[in-house]
């Protein structure tokens, strides 16, 4: 019962806020709704016992990436934009196609969902020891290579961003 309340509340917040993101008038409002949606995601991760991930989500997404978005919105905000059309010309066709994709996805999930045991395991099975330890053990042993590649990715992001943004280099 409580489980249902938690899930449907969070799902409602996430879906409503995601919708507001794509419907909002200006980009700052969109960013504000996206922040709310991201916090909803973080709460959902805690429900799924991914505590470390929830913390990472708030730290990197809400406290990092969204700050970056707001900075860029401030840098490029153009006044006249708010009075122009919000949608591209092909928006009706796009919505139809996207809804088709959604129907397909949900059909697949509902029909094919029975191939795996969809019953949730009882809680605390994942947490033999703390979530941070378990994730860390996987991250720093089995997934050593992706971890090191992540640093290369970040290096590329850092250099690329500076090159793109600076006029004189």
């Amino acid at each position, binding site marked *: 019962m409580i489980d249902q309340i938690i899930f449907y509340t969070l799902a409602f917040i996430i879906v409503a806020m995601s919708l507001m993101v794509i419907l909002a008038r200006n980009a700052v409002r969109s960013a504000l709704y996206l922040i709310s949606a991201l916090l909803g995601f973080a709460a959902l991760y805690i429900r799924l016992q991914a505590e470390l991930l929830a913390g990472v989500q708030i730290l990197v997404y809400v406290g990092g990436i969204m700050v970056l978005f707001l900075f860029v919105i401030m840098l490029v905000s153009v006044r006249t934009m708010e009075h122009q059309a919000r949608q591209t010309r092909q928006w009706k066709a796009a919505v139809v196609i996207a809804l088709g994709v959604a129907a397909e996805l949900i059909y697949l999930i509902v029909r094919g969902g029975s191939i795996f045991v969809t019953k949730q395991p009882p809680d605390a099975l994942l947490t033999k020891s*703390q979530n941070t330890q378990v994730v860390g053990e996987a991250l720093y042993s089995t997934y050593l290579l992706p971890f090191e590649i992540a640093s290369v990715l970040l290096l590329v992001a850092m250099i690329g961003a500076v090159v793109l943004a600076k006029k004189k280099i």
Partner: protein
Amino acid sequence: MNILVNYVVIPLVKIVVIVAILSGGIAYLTLMERKVIARLQHRLGPMRVGWHGILQPIADGLKFIIKEDIIPIKADRFVFTIAPGISLVPAFIVFSVIPFGPPDSLWGTGGYVTDVNIALLFAVAVSSVGVLGVILGGWASNSKYPLLGALRSSAQMVSYEVAMGFGIIGVLLVANSLSLVEIVEKQRSMGVWFFFVQPIAFLIYYFCGMAETNRLPFDLPEAETELVGGFHTEYSGFRFSLFFIAEYANMITVSSLAVTLFFGGWLRPFSSVAALSFLDIIPPPLWFVIKVLIFLYIFIWVRGTLPRFRFDQLMRIGWKVFLPVAMANVMVTGAILLKFL
């Protein structure tokens, strides 16, 4: 039933008490600040309201509530209203994970609102959300000074947040736990405060904390001589007071985390020396408060003593001094720890 009592009723009581103490504490922190700075400058400070100005914070609070609340005509009303809240709420929620007493204190309910596995990560993450309030507040005002102030302020806050994060890693290497309760317990079992193990990490943390809370000598965002008032120029009345309270709440957060991570939290000084056990006459939560007050005093003392940095100096210190030193501190700590493994 038991769960309901342990995780809803008892925490609710603690939360109400903590919020009340925090609100009162913030009010009197302003009085303390004015009095201490007055002493540093050979003045008297507020003297009129009550004995030696003891009722001054209450008068200030009332004034905030009854002042007219102006929303500039060009402002984005929704964002303008919500921004001070975004700045204030994270500053308060961090206290849900900061332990102020041992797990067996307060009649066995534990000297904390809750003890989660990722407490430290949670505290760092949540306090990083506060910067959004500053940016949104400055943007929503749609006026030049607030926008510039917000950009400066947020650039400064994010710059120092990075070095702060690296500073904390130094402690984590020694403590090996993200739970703040366990970090304090570790300091008890090791018999030494982490300040003596990680002095560089502490200095970085505390200076970055000053920059994060926009306090002197890092109070560029509010540099009155150039930016009028920074990101809250257009704010008045109660909304302004929310930003103001958020700044002071952040000061208390930074001090509390500094005490928890580096100065043994609720532990008395030299908790392993039995000869000093007479110090136990002061209960652990009170030790915690005393230590926090010392740090808050240093905040004010620094404000009364040092001039403000220039913005380019500020950025240089953050990125070219604190960040490399903090990273080096992490790796050197790691290398030294290898010897003890």
